[in-house]
C-alpha cells in the first residue's frame, strides 16, 4: 500500500461558545450587526452551525432565524444558499451574507423594523485543538483514524479546514492529493455533500469512499 512521506496528524477538536454583546431584534439590526460583528461570530453561525441542527430547515443560524423568528422565507432561502465551500475567507463569506440581507431590505424596506419573534444572539466559538498522537501514513490508517475520531474532529478536519487553510478543499483531500498523490480520490472525498449529511453520515461517507478505493 502506498505510503505518504508526511503523515496525516489527527487532532481532537472542541469548542467553547462565547456569548457576544450584539443581538438583533429586527432584520434591520441583523443587517447592521452582520457588518460589524466579529469574524469569529460569522464563522460560528455558518461553519459551526453545520455541526449541529441537521434537522433544521437550513444549515446556517442566520437563515434559520430569518425563517423561524422573522417569517421571511425568501430571504432565509437566499441566506441558506450561501455555500461555505465557495468562500476561502471570512471576508467573502460576510460579504455574501450582508449582500443578501441588504438587497432584500432595499426591496422590502418594511421588513427592516418588524420585531422578530425571538432576538438573534451573536455568539462565537473558541476552538481548542489537541494532537491525539495518532498519525496515518496509508489510506487504511486514515480510514481507521476517521472511525475513531469524535464528530467535532470530523467537523474540524472536513469542514473548518477549508477556511483555516484558505483551501477550497478539506484536510483529508489535501493530504490524499499531496501526501499520497491520489488526486481522483481526493476529489471524490471533497465532493461529499456537507449540507445534506449529518456528521455521522458524513463520517460513513468518508469511510465508504476511502474503503471502496482501497478495495478496487
Amino acid at each position, binding site marked *: 500500500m502506498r505510503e505518504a512521506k508526511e503523515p496525516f496528524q489527527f487532532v*481532537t477538536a472542541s469548542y467553547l461558545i462565547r*456569548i457576544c454583546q450584539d443581538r438583533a431584534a429586527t432584520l434591520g439590526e441583523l443587517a447592521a450587526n452582520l457588518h460589524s460583528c466579529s469574524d469569529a461570530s460569522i464563522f460560528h453561525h455558518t461553519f459551526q452551525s453545520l455541526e*449541529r441542527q441537521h434537522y433544521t430547515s437550513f444549515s446556517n443560524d442566520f437563515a434559520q432565524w430569518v425563517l423561524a423568528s422573522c417569517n421571511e422565507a425568501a430571504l432565509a432561502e437566499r441566506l441558506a444558499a450561501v455555500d461555505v465551500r465557495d468562500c476561502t475567507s471570512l471576508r467573502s463569506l460576510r460579504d455574501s451574507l450582508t449582500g443578501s440581507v441588504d438587497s432584500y431590505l432595499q426591496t422590502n424596506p418594511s421588513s427592516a423594523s418588524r420585531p422578530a419573534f425571538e432576538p438573534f444572539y451573536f455568539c462565537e466559538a473558541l476552538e481548542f485543538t489537541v494532537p491525539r498522537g495518532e498519525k496515518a501514513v496509508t489510506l487504511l490508517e486514515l480510514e481507521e483514524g476517521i472511525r475513531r475520531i469524535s464528530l467535532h*474532529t470530523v467537523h474540524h478536519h472536513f469542514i473548518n479546514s477549508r477556511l483555516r487553510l484558505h483551501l477550497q478543499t478539506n484536510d483529508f483531500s489535501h493530504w490524499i492529493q499531496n501526501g499520497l498523490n491520489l488526486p481522483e480520490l481526493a476529489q471524490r472525498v471533497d465532493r461529499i455533500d456537507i449540507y445534506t449529511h449529518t456528521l455521522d453520515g458524513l463520517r460513513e461517507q468518508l469511510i465508504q469512499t476511502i474503503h471502496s478505493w482501497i478495495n478496487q
Partner: protein
Amino acid sequence: MIVGTQSPVSSAPHIDDYATVVGESEIGALRVIARQLQGRRVKMVNSTAVGGGVAEILNRLVPLLDELGVATRWEVIKGGEQFFAVTKGFHNALHGAAYEGHPDWFDLFLATNEENRQHMQFDEDYVVIHDPQPIALVEARDGSKSRWIWRCHIDLSHPAPQVWDFLRPFVERYDSSVFSSPAFTQGLKIPQYLVSPTIDPLAGKNRELEPEFIREVLERFGIDPKRPILTQISRFDRLKDPVGVIQAYKMVSKHIDCQLVLAGGGASDDPEGAAVLNEVKDAANGNADIHILDLPPWSHLEINALQRASTIVIQKSLREGFGLTVSEALWKKKAVVASAVGGIPSQVLHKLTGMLVHSVEGTAYQIRFLLSNPDFARKLGENGHEHVKENFLITHNLKRYMLLFLSFQKLN
C-alpha cells in the same frame, strides 16, 4: 464547621460507561482534553447538597471530573433560615418578580457570605461559584492566583433592578461568567460563556427500562396503556400551570379519547404545594381520566416509566429556568408540547424537535394536531433525541467545563 463537603457517589456510572451512549470517540476526546488539565484543582461551591437541578448536576459532574484526573472538590455554604428566605427573595426577583425585601436583607446576605468565607480555603486553580447565594465569596480572591467563574443557572433577562444592581459588582469581580442560554445574559464586562444544563442518560430518571416495569407502573397508578397518555411532570407549583394543563386536556378530550397524568412532588413538604395540589384536584373535578400523582422525591424510575409510556409530554410552564424535564422527555423520543419560556426554546425548536406554545388554547391545538399526526409526532421525537444527544448530555457539560478552564491558558 460551616461548610459541608460532598463526597462522590461510588455506585454511580463511570466515565467509560457513557461510551455506550455517546461513542468511544467522544470519551476518548474527553480524556485527551483532561490530560491538558492534569495536576489542576477545581472547587465547586453552591448552596444545597440535595434537591434542585444544580445539586443533581454537581452530584454527577464532580465524580466524573475527578475520574478524568481533574481533582474537583464540591463545597456547600451554610446559612440560617433567614438567609435562605433572603436568597429565595433574590431568586424570584432575578427571575423578574417584584422585589419586596427589607433593606436589612442585603446586610444579612453579606454577613452570611463572609461567615462562610472565613471557614473556606480557596487555593484551587479554578473556583466555580454557582448562582447568587455564594456570590460574595469572590471577596476571597484578593491575592490568590485562582481563576474565578460565576455559573448562573437563573434566567437573568428581566431582573428586578434593586437586586441586580446589588449583585452586579460582585459578578464583575469574576474572571468569567457562564449562562444556560444567550437570552439569560446581562451584557457583563467580563466574558460570558454558554454552557447548557444537561441530563444524565444513565441515571434512574433517564436510563432504558424493561417494558414489564413500565406496564407495572401504569397498572399501579390505574393508567390505561391502550389509550393516548398526555403527561406533565413537575412539582405542584403555580408557575408550572398544572390547572392550565387540565384546561387544555379538557379541550382536547372533547375531540379525542385520551388520559392526562400530572405527576410531581412538593405537596407534602411545601404549604404552597399542598394548596396548589388542592386547586389541581378541584380543576380535575373527579374526572377518572385525569391522574394526579403526588410522588415522593425518590420516584425517579416511576417518573422515567411515566415519560416513556406517554404519547405526548407537556411542559406548560409560565416561567422556567431551563426546564430539563423537557430534555428528559426528548431523550426518550417523545413528542413535546411546551411553553416558549426560559430555556425551553433552546430544547424545543418549533416544529423540529417539538411544538412551542403560548396559551392554553395553543397547547390544546398542538396536542390535537400531534395526536392526529403520529408520524410527525414520531419524527419530532427522533429529532429531539438527536438534539439532546448533541447538546444536553452530561458528557457535554464535562467537556465545556474543562474547555472553560483551558480557556484561561489559551487567553494567556
